[in-house]
């Protein structure tokens, strides 16, 4: 019941590990697959090793809501290929999230990932810390980047969208035109926490990205809006911590979902959500989770206020 297809990618479960969570070692990612995920996304990988920002770089603000400024810490693609090779052996469906310093550097990293066995790449054009942070807020740059990568690769290309923009649909449509096979919505929301005793921002970088429960209703709205304008599939991401959150993404228009922050509860959560999704589908009389995609759009809303 839970099988989904995103572009050419066939997954046994619609739950995908989001980028940045446990996605550095093949051993952790194997564990996530064993827990029932349909695929894993790697930590965003760049052209060279990077320590990112000093700690504190991840903490909780409200129950289930975190802020982070990891700053794209990653071992670099050349090192990461060791992990990819290991995963190839175990046949683990891995989407390599990646970024570059220039469009060409994106392309080089993507090619290495494809050659090492990635089943798809996810272009991180939404990292607020990278030099390329301007891409994800600019439709023209997004279009050019996606088009270049599309030409170079034969595996599917996902584009991870930045929610901190006036019009996410404009960026997504540019990605679609450039040849993206799917979009992932959303990355984190720019945020900050200041400690009132020391009077300083807590994150070493000052500001960071909000993830988890708080951003879920924002992500739902973005997916709903994207579904109205896109033809390519949408992968919902942001604040999934139960099957209900996942269903909401499907009803809004998603074809699959990613899960990240909620894994602080333990990776068994993935197993639980799969089970709960199955039960929901049975209770509601569906045969496949794909039937749910976009269903909320069938209902008429009040467009114009009453006077």
């Amino acid at each position: 019941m839970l099988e989904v297809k995103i572009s050419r990618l066939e997954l046994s479960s619609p739950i995908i590990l989001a980028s940045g969570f446990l996605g550095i070692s093949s051993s952790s990612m194997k564990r996530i697959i064993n827990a029932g995920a349909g695929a894993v996304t790697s930590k965003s990988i760049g052209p060279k090793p990077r320590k990112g920002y000093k700690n504190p770089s991840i903490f909780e603000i409200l129950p289930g809501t975190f802020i982070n400024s990891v700053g794209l810490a990653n071992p670099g693609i050349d090192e990461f290929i060791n992990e990819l090779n290991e995963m190839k052996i175990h046949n683990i469906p891995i989407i390599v999230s990646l970024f570059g310093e220039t469009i060409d550097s994106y392309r080089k990293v993507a090619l290495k990932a494809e050659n090492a066995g990635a089943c798809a790449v996810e272009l991180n054009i939404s990292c607020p810390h990278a030099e390329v942070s301007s891409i994800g807020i600019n439709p023209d740059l997004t279009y050019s980047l996606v088009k270049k990568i599309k030409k170079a690769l034969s595996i599917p290309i996902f584009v991870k969208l930045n929610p901190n923009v006036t019009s996410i649909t404009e960026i997504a449509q540019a990605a679609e035109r450039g040849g993206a096979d799917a979009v992932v919505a959303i990355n984190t929301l720019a945020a900050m926490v200041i400690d009132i005793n020391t009077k300083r921002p807590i994150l070493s970088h000052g500001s960071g990205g909000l993830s988890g429960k708080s951003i879920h209703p924002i992500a739902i709205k973005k997916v709903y809006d994207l579904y109205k304008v896109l033809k390519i599939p949408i992968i919902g991401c942001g604040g999934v911590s139960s099957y209900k959150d996942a269903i909401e993404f499907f009803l809004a228009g998603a074809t699959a979902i990613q899960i990240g922050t909620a894994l602080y509860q333990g990776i068994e959560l993935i197993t639980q959500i799969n089970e709960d999704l199955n039960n929901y589908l049975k209770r509601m009389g569906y045969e496949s989770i794909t039937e749910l995609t976009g269903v909320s759009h069938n209902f008429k809303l009040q467009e114009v206020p009453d006077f």
Partner: protein
Amino acid sequence: MIDSSIKTVEIKNIKEECKNIKTFTFNSERFEMKSNLQKPKPGQFVMIWVPGVDEVPMSISGVDDGNWKITVKNVGECTNKLHELEVGDYIGIKGPYGNYFSFPDNTSAKIILVAGGFGTAPLKFLAKEMLKNKYNFTLIQGARNQEDILFLEDLEQFDQNYSEMVFCTDDGSFGYEGFSTQQLEKIITKISIKEMKTTYVYTCGPEKMMYRVFEICEQFDIPLQASLERMMRCGCGLCGLCAIDPLGLLVCKDGPVFDSNQLRAMDDFGKFKRDFTGKKIPID
């Protein structure tokens, strides 16, 4: 569920344990956490934020009413700055995290704790709890020399009916000369076969030392609990930096305390860790 927020607290007390090691006390009640602030157990750790510098994991070395203690060795930028702080200065706390040492079912079990360096911190905490619960144990502490011996005052006050303290130094300046692992072997070889069945070893210290403890325990088929260290970013099972191959066990969440079964399954134990980029590097 653990609250992973960062709360700042004032340092209430600072004690110099030896040349390079200080114990900091802070009052956790000031966290003003609404609920789930659990009393930490021996083996658990907290992430300590030194404002403006860094945030690093530290084992809890003692708990007393609402006061928690950490015992910190000055080894680099963050711990150095921490050593410069004074009573009344703020530090941030996240946690407590991780699992903890579990006690044998039987209080008459034979228990040996093998501590090295600041790894003595969680084991002192464990020893205190064991005393409270009427367990008998031997605590072997290894150090480079007399000056590096930790918690001597504290340890001397332990009830000697229940506890035995064994010290050893590399240069023989205090206690036995040589490594703690040599003392461990010595003690184990004296244990009767019957007693061996109810012998338990706990260790925390440099990983190479712990690996040797593991080898010894394996040889004699003694169950071991070892508290490991890895580079930690989040402390709460999200970033994956502390994963140990090939099972992907997380030191911050599945550990830091691992038992013999888990240790046996670790290719990395005693050999590899990850640096802050996530790259695998050898343990020195």
